[in-house]
């Protein structure tokens, strides 16, 4: 593919259907986006003790995140340098003081350095030397963390983690600041759901304010009906009904919600749920925050207008309810999402229960919300595989957004600036691969 082709495929107001369906383009994405940029590995509380590990994929690469003896967190390729066998065979666990290959017992320290090779004399006089990096597990080129959230990049070059996150780092600030001690802890249950559609369907959908009242009409209407009945009978209804009933809002209401679109394709859908009731639990909790941070700061933290934050191209963080969903693309038409939630350290149990209810009702594998998202994306994938049309339209409100310092603020919640901004970033990732920099002699 040439740069000319790229400009044809991804235009400011529309993209060619093949960016969702083509295997060669998917491979380019894996190589130039996922396997270069900073990718979320997990939260440090997932690997508390020395030897605790968690396996994950960065693009197509099987990796393991592990707590080293010096308390640092390492991210290594989950691969024995001898014959390539994966060293960790499950999602998480404790590997003791090192890794041992289940095939020929090569062993490695927790930083990936080779520790012992059986009958090592067998390598005398060969190219395989113990002090050769090729005898050790290969580490990710860069590992960094922000407020306990660990990322790795398989490329030694590129922006720092903080540069990459930019203002979207508010995803983690907003989550942690809501704890009186400024920290969160993972709840060790990860739900995994496979969608039969391209990963971009998920990323676009997350900030697509036109879809909720259509896609989720059945659930929104049903929840609102029961919520209203409970309110009528008991005066108030549990907050979790609201998590579902807000989906049944009007187009006009959704159009009034703003999206904020950052460099690198990141973005924010601002708040619409109003999660500050005045019940005793909330009053107690807000009191704890005020005590910890002072009136002004606590108010700033509590009133941040965020529904969720996207870290492009793979992460959706619903910070006010401590939810996190991470995409691991498998194929052009197959994507795994890993779904986690967190506990605000030092916050009352009742506040955790709100995150728990959201996790149960919206993010569990029995979700009444994503049931219809996944159905629509599958049908979307099939539609884009057809020859019934070549283009995917992102024309809505084009030219109607406000851009300041590289950040695009929508003036209509349903503006497709979200997708336009994501594809701007997509193009920036892919372009160097198809248009190598010309050296100036």
């Amino acid at each position, binding site marked *: 593919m040439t740069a000319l082709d790229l400009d044809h495929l991804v235009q400011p107001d529309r993209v060619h259907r093949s960016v969702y369906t083509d295997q060669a383009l998917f491979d380019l994405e894996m190589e130039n986006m996922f396997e270069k940029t900073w990718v979320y590995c997990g939260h440090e509380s997932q690997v508390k003790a020395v030897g605790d590990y968690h396996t994950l994929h960065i693009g197509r690469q099987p990796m393991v995140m592990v707590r080293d003896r010096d308390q640092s967190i390492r991210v290594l390729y989950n691969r024995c340098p001898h014959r390539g066998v994966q060293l960790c065979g499950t999602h998480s666990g404790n590997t003791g003081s090192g890794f041992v290959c289940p095939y020929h017992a090569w*062993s490695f320290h927790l930083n990936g350095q080779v520790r012992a090779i059986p009958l090592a004399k067998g390598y005398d006089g060969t190219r395989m030397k113990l002090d050769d990096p090729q005898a050790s597990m290969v580490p990710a080129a860069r590992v960094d963390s922000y407020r306990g959230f660990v990322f790795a990049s398989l490329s030694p070059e590129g922006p720092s983690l903080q540069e990459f996150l930019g203002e979207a780092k508010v995803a983690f600030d907003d989550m942690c600041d809501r704890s009186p001690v400024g920290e969160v802890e993972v709840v060790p*249950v990860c739900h995994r759901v496979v969608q039969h559609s391209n990963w971009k369907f998920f990323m676009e959908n997350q900030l697509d304010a036109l879809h909720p009242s259509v896609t989720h*009409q059945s*659930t929104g209407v049903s929840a609102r009906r029961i919520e209203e009945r*409970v309110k009528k009978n008991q005066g108030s209804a549990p907050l979790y009904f609201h998590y579902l009933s807000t989906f049944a809002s009007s187009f006009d209401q959704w159009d009034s919600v703003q999206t904020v679109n950052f460099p690198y394709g990141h973005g924010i859908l601002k708040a619409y749920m109003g999660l500050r009731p005045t019940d005793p639990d909330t009053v107690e909790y807000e009191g704890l925050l005020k005590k910890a941070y002072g009136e002004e700061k606590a108010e700033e933290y509590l009133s941040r207008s965020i529904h969720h934050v996207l870290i492009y191209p793979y992460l959706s963080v619903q910070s006010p309810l401590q939810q996190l969903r991470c995409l691991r693309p498998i194929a052009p038409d197959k994507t795994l999402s890993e779904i986690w*939630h967190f506990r605000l350290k030092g916050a009352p149990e009742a506040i955790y229960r709100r995150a728990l209810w959201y996790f149960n009702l919206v993010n569990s594998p029995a979700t009444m919300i994503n049931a219809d998202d*996944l159905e629509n994306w599958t049908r979307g994938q099939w539609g884009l595989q057809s020859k019934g049309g070549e283009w995917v339209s992102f024309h809505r409100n084009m030219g109607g957004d406000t851009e300041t310092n590289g950040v695009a603020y929508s003036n209509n919640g349903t503006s497709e600036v979200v997708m336009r901004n994501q594809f701007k970033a997509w193009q920036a990732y892919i372009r160097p691969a198809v248009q190598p920099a010309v050296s100036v002699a």
Partner: protein
Amino acid sequence: MSKTTLTTQQALGSGVIIEAVHSMTGAESIAPDHMGRACVPAQGYVPQTAAQVDPALMHQVQTLLFRQAAMLDAKCWADWMALFTDDGVYWMPSNPDQTDWASQPSIFAEDPLLMEVRMGRLQHPNAWSQAANWSTNHIVGNVMIEHIEKDALEVYSRFHMMELRRDNVRHFAGSYRHSLVRVGSDWKIKLQRVDMSNAQGAYDYVIQAWV
């Protein structure tokens, strides 16, 4: 490679016998005593058995369990919900070691009001995921009454559910634990606990209705 005049015939004429001895290969560094997994606590739940079970009671309980499964397969949602007490709970934990439906993450944690939300969604004409062919078939068996009181029973059973959605078949299987209470001449479900063997597997699409 050093050059010799060794022939294959000569090479095959000698050899060593490997014996099973207590040798260290290096792989033991994870568990030098070879006993690592023995320390891992058993997972799941082994049912108790009630001392004596009246066959008529067993018949009544089995009929209830088989009918609740048949109602799900027949999509008779309202009839199925009517099997529960007013404070009944349908609970599918994330892990078999969970003990409390309200404080730990679940796949399902629904009281009658939330069941009604789910039923309302399934019956709504714009529940898009319901456009595709979708049906289930449950088999329920291994029924054991674990504990009997005058007006309360604890019942253990196992299930296997096949699901057809569009052109794909999935299987879900596990155990039920029913807490039943007597209401008039009937038994009603106070808690239906569903421990699914594949609860923590990756879900290919989601689960739309109760299992």
